[in-house]
């Protein structure tokens, strides 16, 4: 039996099922990161006056700015890969999806360089409450990047064969992973100023 509503919209929700599913998942993700943002506020107010700002001076702002630009670029290439499928251009889809993966890899490499620079300076999550929440938030965000990359890679190469058998469902799959990817970008948009700039 075929799975229903993979392409056609349900009459009661007006959506195909995966679209509603991913938004409910993203709502749970908002609460997951929300809990940690809440912990950040708690720790910031609990620290001595100005201490969070001072501890944050150890971070590399130019590298983090570059990473922000890379992640924003990956969001654009992600949405362009979906738009390419809508335009029936599978070659451009392959190009844009490949670029999205490349950006994601670039983001992780920069994050790795940042982490190793901190460890070399003997800065760890146990150093102070700022670095405890810094490593927790950026670590969880990094895990989301890795998880996203696995799905992106699947849709880039092995999962692409669905384009030949059911192009609409494949396009919907790319839209769904795109929504997740943009969410990961959105989280970083808030992490960047609160951890690096304030």
């Amino acid at each position, binding site marked *: 039996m075929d799975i229903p509503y993979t392409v056609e919209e349900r009459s009661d*929700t*007006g*959506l195909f099922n995966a*679209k*509603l599913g991913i*938004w*409910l998942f993203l*709502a749970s993700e*908002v*609460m997951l990161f*929300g*809990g940690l*943002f*809440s*912990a950040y*506020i*708690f720790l910031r*107010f*609990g620290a001595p006056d*100005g201490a969070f*700002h001072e501890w944050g001076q150890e971070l590399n*702002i130019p590298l983090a*700015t570059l990473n*922000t*630009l890379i992640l*924003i*670029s990956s*969001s*654009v290439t*992600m*949405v*362009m890969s979906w*738009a390419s499928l*809508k*335009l*029936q251009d599978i070659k451009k889809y392959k190009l844009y999806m490949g670029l999205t993966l490349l950006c994601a890899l670039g983001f992780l490499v920069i994050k790795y360089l940042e982490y190793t620079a901190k460890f070399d300076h003997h800065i760890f999550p146990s150093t102070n409450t700022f670095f405890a929440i810094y490593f927790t938030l950026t670590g969880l965000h990094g895990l989301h990047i890795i998880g996203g990359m696995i799905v992106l890679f699947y849709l880039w190469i092995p999962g692409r064969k669905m384009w030949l058998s059911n192009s609409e469902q494949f396009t919907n799959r790319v839209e769904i992973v*795109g*929504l997740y990817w*943009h*969410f990961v*970008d*959105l989280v970083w*948009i*808030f992490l*960047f*100023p*609160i951890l690096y*700039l*304030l």
Partner: protein
Amino acid sequence: MSTNHDTKDIQQHIKVYMIVFATLAALTVATVAASYLDLSRGEAIFLALTIASVKGSLVASYFMHLISEKALITWILMLTAVFFFILMFIPMTSFIDQSRLG
């Protein structure tokens, strides 16, 4: 297969994506530049979070297509936003406690 109408629609979307991309990049540079301004801590937090909120809204509205999404999703997100803001205010209760205890 996509119709001519769909194709024109998507091509229009692509133009918007490029404008949003340029705006996001400009706002990223602006938020870094603003962090070097001589502002009080409160002003700096307000400015940085305002720019981040504008950037976040652009991503959600255009890349995630929320601007043209079905009402059900908007309702789900509004409910999520309520709980999110409650979560942000929970740490404040500890400070009320602290001041009560002196």
